[in-house]
């Protein structure tokens, strides 16, 4: 009994890590731009595909390389390229609207469309067939009593925690992080401090997208079947996790992701798995009813 509880908890941590990594991107962009970047789930999908192409390319050129070495190259490359996609999106789709002072509604709709363009662009370019991700890491199973964990799952949880610590450091200790917090509080005064707003926004997209890319890579390693719509559902769920945590707040996104992971695993442990999303989201709705600003949200004032 105890073993199965611990086992489930661990699985929840791993599952929640994906949500957390993606939710951080939603929350960062929201904090700075007051924009819900609905394309973010598809950035995650793009990240998984980028990882796929880089990994197969490296393996194609150098078959004999050990998996960990390939992974060491794939991780930074995926994060950089995914960040590039996120930044391009900002540049091509969101910035022109911002310059014209478009109402937020139009920017959100644009974000939704960007997501659809990414999904369907992928479908058009690569076809409907699913891609299977090469196995880069040899699976090692550690068993303690009846609880078993794999090196990969530990790696996933560790990555999420490291990203969170890194982000906390950026936001509290660096000037650009301070500028991100400042924008979320008072956008007007930021250029008056000699700070180029566009630089801060681009930096925010770099952070959010590279974490989504990392999540995509880790997801592909864990569940090695890729399809163009893989980001849609996960993206929605991560968005909900960010809102439940209190959108705009980094701790909120991080904990919200884990909370969603826990709730899902918990539901599956008790009920048939077809009930998972129904019950999980019902629970989250109850949480939002009780505290509409989310766990860490303080309505309108302290974001990021």
């Amino acid at each position, binding site marked *: 009994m105890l073993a199965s509880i611990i086992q489930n908890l661990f699985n929840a941590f791993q599952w929640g890590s994906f949500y957390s990594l993606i939710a951080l991107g939603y929350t960062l962009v929201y904090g700075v731009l007051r924009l819900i970047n609905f394309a973010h789930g598809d950035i995650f999908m793009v990240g998984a595909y980028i990882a796929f192409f880089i990994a197969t390319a490296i393996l194609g050129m150098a078959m004999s390389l050990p998996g960990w070495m390939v992974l060491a190259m794939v991780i930074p490359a995926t994060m950089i390229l995914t960040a590039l996609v996120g930044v391009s999106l900002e540049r091509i789709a969101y910035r022109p609207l911002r*310059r014209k002072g478009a109402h937020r509604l139009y920017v959100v709709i644009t974000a939704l469309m960007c997501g659809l363009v990414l999904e369907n662009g992928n479908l058009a370019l690569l076809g409907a067939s699913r891609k299977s991700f090469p196995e880069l890491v040899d699976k090692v199973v550690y068993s303690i009593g009846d609880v078993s964990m794999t090196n990969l799952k530990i790696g996933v949880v560790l990555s999420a925690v490291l990203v969170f610590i890194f982000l906390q450091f950026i936001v509290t200790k660096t000037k650009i992080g301070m500028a991100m917090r400042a924008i979320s509080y*008072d956008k007007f*005064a930021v*250029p008056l401090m*000699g700070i180029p707003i566009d630089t801060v926004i681009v930096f925010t997209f770099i952070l959010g997208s590279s974490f989504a890319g990392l999540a995509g890579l880790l997801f592909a390693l864990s569940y090695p079947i890729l399809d163009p719509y893989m980001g849609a559902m996960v993206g929605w769920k991560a968005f909900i996790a960010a809102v439940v945590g209190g959108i705009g707040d980094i701790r909120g996104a991080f904990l919200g992701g884990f909370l969603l992971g826990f709730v899902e695993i918990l539901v599956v442990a008790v009920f048939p798995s077809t009930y998972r999303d129904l019950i999980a989201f019902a629970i989250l709705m109850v949480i939002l009813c009780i505290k509409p600003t989310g766990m860490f949200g303080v309505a309108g004032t302290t974001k990021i």
Partner: protein
Amino acid sequence: MLLEIKNLYVKYGNIEALHGISFNVDKGEIVTLIGANGAGKTTTLHTITRVPPPEGPKVTQGDILYKGQSILGVEAHKVVQDLHIALSPEGRHIFGNLTVEENLQLATYARNDHDTIQEDFKRVYDLFPRLYERRKQRSESLSGGEQQMLSVGRSLMTGADFIMLDEPSMGLAPLLMYDMFRALKELNSQGMTLLLIEQNARIALQFAHRGYVLDTGAIVASGNAKELMNNPDVKKAYLGG
């Protein structure tokens, strides 16, 4: 001449807010723009800071020269970074979710002259000891007067040698108001050039060297502060008779 506004016409959307105003500020001066609500005072400052449309006003005619160069093509953050012009905006606009110290630190974003930054910290804290006492506090917990000090301190920390102040007396009790103006005078005596916008014409003219009176987007009177204070029209309209 440090700042020269030449026949400036400015629009917000389709509404013209300034109808060809001209004025200038010399190095080392305190110049004040006085006028009623809606006269175009804030618009004038926002035009100089180059905040882009849609938030900022659009220049349709005329020019703004700073040290003899037109600054109309300069980006907002470059006005601060490169020209060292700072604005302490109306309503203070401090970053309430940051501490006092973080607010000041953030204002040094574009600077990398580490030693001078430390001197400037000292300078701000000497000028406003209250800020030093409260440096670790979240700035939204400050009183109105302290927030105003922080707003001015932040302008200093950008490394500016020309600071524009939009209603620094707003919402302050008379005693605090005089403290604030004494601090500004002190800054001025250290060589800082100030352009001061005030609805409280009496105190502005008391501390300024020269002044301009702005009325519905046009300058209607100008002169040195003493003259303006004794000008019967100004007296009647802005100094309560």
